[in-house]
């Protein structure tokens, strides 16, 4: 079920995380008045570097570069940038995979913000259990802390069976035990943790176990990619926000018999593509989400 903004605001009344897309002050980066502990980060997703079908993206070689430029021109630069997987488009050749990762890394090195974090998608890691990804970008699951928020990066792609796996789930449980029940926790994943549309691989086979482990914590928000479109849903008090991609949009869940990329629209180039800004309002325990086009215009 897709949750619209009204539902989210309703949920916010009983929860602790407010989805306030288009209400944030940092989104237009002109009237920023953040609290001293507030911060702003950018989520880029599904860049699919190496994809080369002009019928789907006429500017397949330029879209990522435009997004990098757009992020660099944000009036307030984010504290960090998170890439939520599918950095590269799948190739069956191990050497080509590494070439694509090298090219991707070179392009994003032009970002002004140097705190950039990466995680794999199944296109990056599903064929070699993350071997190439680790060579170029490091661990596939990890945690970090920033200004009072605990960030957890979960890998639900290196195992081709769309699972997190028991070992990582145990690692997650052990990490969460170190947190207070009301700690501010943000989880990054590639695939959705919940069953958005399993027939299209829009799920994590053991995602319910991760949600169960996270459920006792009152301030948890999940940001993910994979589905190449904005989508918002709550499982209990946990909000899940999918981001647009930066190579091709995909149809709404289950809206067509077969999931194929939406063709390029010459009248609306880059339609359905973009990136996301997230303003963390620490005292209010909420995240204001803003969506940007490839060229950096607020949507």
């Amino acid at each position, binding site marked *: 079920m897709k949750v619209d903004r009204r539902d989210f605001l309703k949920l916010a009344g009983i929860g602790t995380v407010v989805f306030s897309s288009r209400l944030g002050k940092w989104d237009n980066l002109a009237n920023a008045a953040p609290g001293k502990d507030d911060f702003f980060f950018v989520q880029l997703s599904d860049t699919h570097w190496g994809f080369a079908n002009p019928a789907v993206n006429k500017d397949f070689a330029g879209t990522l570069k435009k997004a990098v430029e757009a992020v660099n021109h944000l009036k307030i630069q984010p504290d960090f940038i998170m890439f939520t997987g599918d950095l590269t488009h*799948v*190739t*069956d050749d191990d050497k080509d995979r590494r070439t694509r990762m090298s090219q991707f890394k070179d392009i994003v090195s032009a970002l002004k913000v140097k705190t950039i974090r990466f995680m794999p998608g*199944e296109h990056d890691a*599903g*064929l070699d259990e993350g071997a190439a990804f680790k060579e170029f970008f490091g661990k596939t699951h990890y945690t970090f802390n920033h200004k009072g928020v605990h960030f957890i990066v979960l890998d639900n*792609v290196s195992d*081709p*069976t*769309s699972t997190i796996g028991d070992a990582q789930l145990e690692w997650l449980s052990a990490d969460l035990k170190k947190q207070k029940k009301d700690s501010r926790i943000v989880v990054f994943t590639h695939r959705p943790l919940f069953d958005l549309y*399993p*027939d299209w*691989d829009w799920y994590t086979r053991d995602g319910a176990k991760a949600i169960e482990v996270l459920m006792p914590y009152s301030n948890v928000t999940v940001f993910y990619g994979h589905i190449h479109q904005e989508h918002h849903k709550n499982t209990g008090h946990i909000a899940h926000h999918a981001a647009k991609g930066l190579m091709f949009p995909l149809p709404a869940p289950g809206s067509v*018999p077969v*999931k*194929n990329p939406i063709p390029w629209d010459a009248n609306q180039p880059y339609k359905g593509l973009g990136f996301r800004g997230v303003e963390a309002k620490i005292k209010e325990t909420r995240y204001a989400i803003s969506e940007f086009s490839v060229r950096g215009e607020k949507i």
Partner: protein
Amino acid sequence: MKSMKTRILIHGTVAALILISTGSYLIAAENEQVIQITAKRFEYSPKEITLKKGVPVVLEFTSLDRLHGFNCSGLGIRMDIRPGKVNRLRLVPDKVGTFPFHCDNFCGSGHEGMRGTIMVTE
């Protein structure tokens, strides 16, 4: 040892009865139909399978290269197809119709197109 065998037999019988009652799976009886299906990047062979409603069948999957999956949500069945072994799935189709299936273990550049169809007739 004998009691353990008996216990297993009883458990198996109970499981079979439960599965029969749901109408989806069945511990196959004798003379069951067997359909062999190979999976490889990025196709099944055969990719179109015709079954009869209510007739038990065993689908025997073999992977010719790497891990693949078989997911037919319309019939409520899925399994991993692991290379180096025969992967068997027993079912009794309980409804008539055309049910698409697909590979649900990411297998490479043609993964999205690795599909097929089960047609169940009266």
